[in-house]
């Protein structure tokens, strides 16, 4: 793996240090999975050498949705309404399509109240990163079942959950999201690489990250706990990330032992083969592997699907190079002649 930090000492390729990517101190519970994810976001952005001012953070409402305050202080951010991050992000990112959108939501925020907006964001292939910090409960309202809680789960307040869980990756896949991955807050190395890949993808990158809620839902035998995850995680591949500017060595490409996918900006995601042969460019394969994981009771992690060439929402428009929000008023108001023509065309007498 090519580590920007090692290569450049403390300054990354953008001339910034890790501190430039920090946020305010977290007010989440100690040990909360969400905090680990924030750390990996900081690490990924730092190592990729992204300019924080070129990232815009979005979230909904929940513990997870609070976390954008805890990374990237120098980025704009919008803590929207519960379940409505997608619409705010979509509108906000049209303002300047040269910035990168980075959204953080929760399982309640996305799969309960936010189901509709999430699905439609995916359908539009809105180019942004969409992280779901998935703990199977509503953390901020103190531990009710969310829509991703597994059947049979017993929680202190609510008794047993009798519903089948929503699988966020499945949902993203059937609605044609162009990048779908599953991560685990207890597996930071893989997580960082997934975040890097997501940040480099041109299209909607959905990252469903199992992120235990240590306060309300971390029983060892439950799907969303650290222990269960650690014991049942099956990595689809050993994922590595090669930035456009880095040289790819022969060794990275040991033939037959890895798959690689080139993203639009020239970066390459290398997936070294582990147990299984897996082709992440086939949506149907992804459906199959998820079904298999469910049957085999494993936590499958890795890049499930990517289509680097899918048409994004921005591709459907013909937008200027200059950000829309910097256009001069003169570019916004048509001329007086244009109005005269309109008047004429309206059957003027």
């Amino acid at each position: 793996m090519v580590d920007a930090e090692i290569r450049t000492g403390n300054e990354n390729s953008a001339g910034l240090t890790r501190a430039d990517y920090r946020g305010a101190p977290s007010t989440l519970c100690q040990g909360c999975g969400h905090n680990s994810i924030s750390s990996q976001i900081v690490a990924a952005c730092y190592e990729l050498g992204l300019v924080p001012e070129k990232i815009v953070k979005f979230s909904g409402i929940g513990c997870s949705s609070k976390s954008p305050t805890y990374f990237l202080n120098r980025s704009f951010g919008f803590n929207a309404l519960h379940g409505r991050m997608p619409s705010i992000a979509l509108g906000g990112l049209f303002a300047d399509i040269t910035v990168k959108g980075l959204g953080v939501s929760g399982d309640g925020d996305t799969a309960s109240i936010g189901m509709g907006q999430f699905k439609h964001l995916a359908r539009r292939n809105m180019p942004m990163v969409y992280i779901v910090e998935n703990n199977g409960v509503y953390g901020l309202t103190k531990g009710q079942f969310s829509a991703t809680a597994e059947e049979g789960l017993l929680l202190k307040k609510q008794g047993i959950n009798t519903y089948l869980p929503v699988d966020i990756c499945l949902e993203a896949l059937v609605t044609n999201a162009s990048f779908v991955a599953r991560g685990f807050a207890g597996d930071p190395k893989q997580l960082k690489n997934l975040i890097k890949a997501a940040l480099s993808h041109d299209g909607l990158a959905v990252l469903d990250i199992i992120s235990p809620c240590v306060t309300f839902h971390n029983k060892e035998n439950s799907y969303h706990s650290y222990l269960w995850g650690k014991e049942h995680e099956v990595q689809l591949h050993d994922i590595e990330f090669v930035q456009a500017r880095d040289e790819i060595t022969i060794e990275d490409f040991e033939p037959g032992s890895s798959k690689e996918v080139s993203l639009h900006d020239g970066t390459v995601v290398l997936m070294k083969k582990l147990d299984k042969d897996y082709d992440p460019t086939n949506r149907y394969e992804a459906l199959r592997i998820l079904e298999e994981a469910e049957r085999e009771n494993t936590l499958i992690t890795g890049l499930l699907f990517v289509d680097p060439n899918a048409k994004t929402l921005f591709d459907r428009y013909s937008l200027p190079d200059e950000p829309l929000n910097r256009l001069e008023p003169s570019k916004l108001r048509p001329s007086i002649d244009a109005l005269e023509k309109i008047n004429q065309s309206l059957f003027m007498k």
Partner: protein
Amino acid sequence: MTKTQNSSEQKLLKKQKIINDFCITFSTVNGSGSATANTTLMRTFFKMGIPVSGKNIFPSNIQGLPTWYTLRLSEKGYLARVEEDDIVVAMNPSTINKEIEYIVPGGVLFYPDDMKFANTRDDIVCYPMPIRKIIKESEVSPSLKDYISNMVYVGILAQMLGIPIDVIQEALRFHFKNKEKPVNLNMDVIGKSSEWAKENLKKSDPYYVEPMQGNEDWIMSDGNTAGALGSIFGGVQFTAWYPITPASSLAESLHEYIPELRTDLVTGKQTSVIVQAEDELAAIGMAIGAGWGGLRSMTSTSGPGLSLMTEFIGLAYYAEIPVVLWNVQRVGPSTGLPTRTAQGDITFVKFMGHGDTDNIMLFPGSVNECFEFGWKAFDIAERLQTPVVVMSDLDLGMNEWMTPKFIYPDQPIDRGKILWEEDLQKMLDKYQNEFGRYKDLDGDGITYRTLVGNLHPKAAYFTRGTGHDEYAKYTEDPKIWEESLMRIKRKFENGKKYLPKPLTKTNNSKSGIICVGSASFPVEEALDILFAENLSFDYMRIRTVPLHDEVIDFLQSHERIFIVELNRDGQLAQLLTLKAPDEAIKFRNITKVDGLPLTAKWIVNEIRKDEEKK
């Protein structure tokens, strides 16, 4: 029955000619394609210089239910609805019996000669029309038959009222964008029908049209098109919407005009984006996201969609995000009457959103004002950093009106207090080297904002609907909460100067009449009628909420005030009461909501009732 068959024919003929001052209702079945015929007639009258207005009363359905289209010709220029018909063109057998009742004595009925109905009136003139026969002779393709049938009445009316055929042709050419084939097809039927009428019908009614000079420099447009154009000339950059009657055509007009008007001449790229959202929650969310990002941004909706936007409007109010919401009002509560008009969302919008809110409303009172408020709304929203709700209605929005031509904005675009990199640096130099998104530096309650993409390392801030301090940082501090909410209140108080003032007409009367929006058409007509009866009134058309001090002056300086509005509960009157409770004792609520635009006649009656009580 042949030619004219009315027994009281002689009586009628004695009456004087009525020129350019009557009302025709076309009753048809919706989906039968009568719109072309009706708007062609309207355009024809317009082109003749006759003041004309058209009202389409249609069902919430696509095909097969009754629809009425009323054209009012008014020498004096009144454009309001009237209650009775002078002429009815009855194309729908299922409703003709009722329509006959609405014809004034001495009025006229045109009907297809094979339509069966019980004629209960001996005081009207009835003209049969051999529609089936004429169509048969015209050899149009079967799929066009229904549609072209309507051209028969155009031709017959032309003959009977004295409409110049060449003006009809001009209107058709306009309609078909100069495509010869359809114009000729239609003209052929019109010609034949007119010919037939000339030969077979004897004029025995008093109605005539004549060219006049009633609308020089005017145009024809509906309010939704005008609103869309106004928005485009206001520099709209982002629109998100979800289809709903009667607002859809506003967004659809944006779709229509933006490619032409908002493609950058240099780069060939588009400067205005439209997204059809999955619902209204998303539409307003996208619009607010874009407004936050620094785009002039809007959405349009009505009734149910408006209600769905409640939570987001509260966010924009408190996080101070500019966004324009066109609310083309229809009849509520609930799904209500989706294709009928009302002014029923006034109190709701005022208090929309939980907690203390207070939303700005603009009430366009005419089609050309829809254009004007189209661009002004953005200046206000960006200047005050808050949602602006433009309160149009179905009558204004969906009906085609004659209206003074659109006037180019007389003020430059006002983007309010925006800081880019250099502006920010200057500000930092001047103040304590820290940018505070919600810091009231100018004492007017309006704070400065930076926009997405601003690369200055101090530009970024974090927006939220939760409690925040001057630096946009999260806080639950009681004092800070109270202060920030009070600052916002101050912002609104100070901000009134950016809002269009009410318009007044003074007669030095002790009584006043107040209304908003499209209610002004019947109200202004009523004023004339009352004046003719020696009842004179002063008149104020309010154009915004919050209310200007001029409104209070008006209330104070009159002894009785009639507040005319199209809703059940007297919603405008309620806002006036809150503003000036001491004056409320003078208020007389003239309200009604039945889905139809108000009429001068009804208003006059209501006012007379009150006069009699005195």
